[in-house]
């Protein structure tokens, strides 16, 4: 189930218990790794635009996370925001001197057996391609917010913690960006 909303109390307790277990014993980190790896990878992929760099950076992020895990306190910043903050700064460090690119290529997963009407499929692909073009031309900060919200599956409150802005400012910017894209797509 993919939801960016805040975790329920039960989910938070379960995650806290996993984190505390991983702080005592690294082997217990595996469920957390599986929970967050793909979200981190996709966020990084949208930042760097190629699978090799995204994979290398994903490794770096989790190695840093494992190294810093003993100092993490579940009652402070939420774990998802903590992890994405590591990813956010890792990529900022690596790509500070380079021109960052975001790949929004049409790479969606297509099972071999697709129950899709061929005509609708073509229209859908064209719309995706048009949107990908618009996203590439967006201001980097706006793209960053979209990447955190959609690929990272973070809530606006979590994004606010990652980018050091207020929740209201993040939500306002996301709403404006979507409105801007909607007008261009019309």
């Amino acid at each position, binding site marked *: 189930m993919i939801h960016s909303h805040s975790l329920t109390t039960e989910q938070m307790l379960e995650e806290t218990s996993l984190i505390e277990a991983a702080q005592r014993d*690294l082997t217990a980190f595996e469920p957390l*790794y599986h929970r967050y790896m793909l979200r981190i990878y996709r966020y990084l992929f949208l930042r760097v635009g190629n699978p090799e760099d995204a994979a290398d950076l994903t490794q770096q992020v989790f190695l840093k996370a494992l190294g810093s895990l003993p100092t993490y306190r579940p009652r402070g910043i939420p774990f998802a925001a903590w992890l994405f903050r590591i990813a956010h700064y890792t990529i900022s460090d690596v790509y500070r001197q380079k021109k960052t690119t975001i790949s929004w290529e049409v790479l969606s*997963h297509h099972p071999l057996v697709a129950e899709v009407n061929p005509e609708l499929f073509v229209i859908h692909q064209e719309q995706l391609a048009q949107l990908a073009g618009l996203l590439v031309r967006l201001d980097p900060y706006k793209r960053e917010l979209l990447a955190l919200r959609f690929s990272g599956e973070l809530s606006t409150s979590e994004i606010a913690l990652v980018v050091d802005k207020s929740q209201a400012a993040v939500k306002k910017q996301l709403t404006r960006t979507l409105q801007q894209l909607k007008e261009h*797509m019309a």
Partner: protein
Amino acid sequence: MKDQHELQTTYADLLGETPDPTLTQLIQHIDTLSHGPQAPSSCSWQTIKSLHTAQSGKLHPLHDLTHTNAVISPPRQNRTRHWMRVGSGLAAAVLLLGILVGSLLFSAHAGPFQVFQQPNRHITLVASQHGRVPTPQALEQAQTILLNRFQHIGLTNTQVHVITTHGQARISLDLVSLSGNEQQALSTLLATGILQVWDTGPATDLGSLLQPGVTFHLTDYTQYNPGGKSGFANQDFNPNAFSASKDPQSGTYRVNFALQGSAITHFQNYTAARIGDVLTITLDDTVITSAVIQSPIPGSGAIVGNFTQAQANALAATLASGVLPIRLTPA
């Protein structure tokens, strides 16, 4: 792709209480684009665990060095480096202690992960190349490919040796014993690794849909594959794109793939021209999946079979590491 209800639930904060259809469609599209990339096998937990162990020189536990609620960020990097230095010193001490007790520990119990276990299983296989004794170059290349395959799934301590005696070449493997599920994956890791895509005829024909695991007989399908050639083979696939993933809905494992170069367009045209036919994928002439083409398939997709996680990982590792220039058979 998310359905309307799931989309509304996931993005309620952006859509509002009375969603605008255009905005909903836009969010649906951004969601689709954002969830396309599939992580490669190099992002496996086994790999991260091995790298962390190599860096820190320790397995666990992680020692609580400080009580600050640190988040990695530029202003705190000096402090992080300081603790890393302290951590390195402590890790060295833990490592020394670990060396003293390590052999005792590993000999007495199975380690926490297979990757850290000592090899305890020996396999010898006869190597041949077109029915003859392989050349030294082919054997060396096969050794490298096999090592890559095992490293890909985290069995980094697997040893692969080439033995040439009495005019016969053998490959000897020392690896950890695998469980029942993983045992099946082993045969995939030792396969030659020839991947081929075939048209096995209209779905309405008996025999067009083939069961995974059966041997593929080209003679039964030559009419759909001009010249007896497969539509696509290893060189048409991007080796870095093979990855195993779990379908969150069905809970089954699949192997993701992407074509490369001109094969991307060719694959789309190939499938567009064969809607209603069955596309069958084989590994070394054994069927791994067979499915009806219902729409043109762009340059990426997934091999969907009844894979266990170990089998999907092994298949992705085998395909990503390349084709063996030799054939291996039990000694």
